[in-house]
């Protein structure tokens, strides 16, 4: 029940991940590595489509915040597109609503 997938799509502006499943301690390494790999490849404009994310705990917020900072420090952009209700809820509780688009 803890499966997480991140389909990767390169766009004109940068890179987008279509994320599905749960973002928890169980798969934090997978989630974090996908994003850190994208940064290491030089992508500084990262979009996460989180429509199909069913659970996100504070470890997900921690990784998102770290990635956001890296993108901004590099003069790029980090956005969360089409968040599920669960994602909206935890981003709201974390006062990170401004990352959301769509």
């Amino acid at each position, binding site marked *: *029940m*803890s499966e997480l997938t991140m389909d990767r799509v390169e766009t004109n502006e940068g890179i987008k991940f279509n994320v599905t499943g749960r973002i*928890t*301690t*169980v798969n934090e390494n997978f989630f974090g590595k996908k994003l850190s790999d994208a940064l290491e490849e030089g992508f500084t404009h990262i979009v996460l489509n989180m429509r199909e994310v*069913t*659970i*996100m*705990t*504070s*470890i997900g*917020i*921690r990784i998102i*915040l*770290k990635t*956001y*900072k890296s993108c*901004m420090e590099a003069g790029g952009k980090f956005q969360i597109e089409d968040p599920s209700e*669960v994602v909206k*809820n*935890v981003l709201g*509780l*974390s*006062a*990170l609503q*401004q990352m959301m688009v769509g």
Partner: protein
Amino acid sequence: MVTLNIIANINNTGEVMDIVDSELDRNDFPVDLRPEILIAVEEAFVNIASYAYKPEEDGYVELSVDVDEKAVIRFTDWGEPFNPLEGNAPDLNVPIMEREIGGLGIHFIKNLMDEANYEYSGGNNILTITKNMTKKDREI
């Protein structure tokens, strides 16, 4: 109701979430309330697994899940007395670029559940978190 002992190790977080999820499912607890419960369960278990025992100890947590018109999840450990609910709330007014990375777990528990209570009794740390069905859910 289900009660079991599990080693307080972060690697067991998925199993703990699956046990709670199964019990919610078995009792037809409203689907829309389950994600909030599971998030709070992860935060609570990870907190205990991280802080209740010394790293070299294989301490246990007793997990108890009781579901009817509310879901009551109780974590009991035998580590040092520690009330996780007393920690400072994160400062969410700080600009994002200056924000600390971390410290949100207990904040989530307090805000996603209807009740969160801690007691220390007979050498046990007992953390109980509760989610109530809504009135609308009870009428279905």
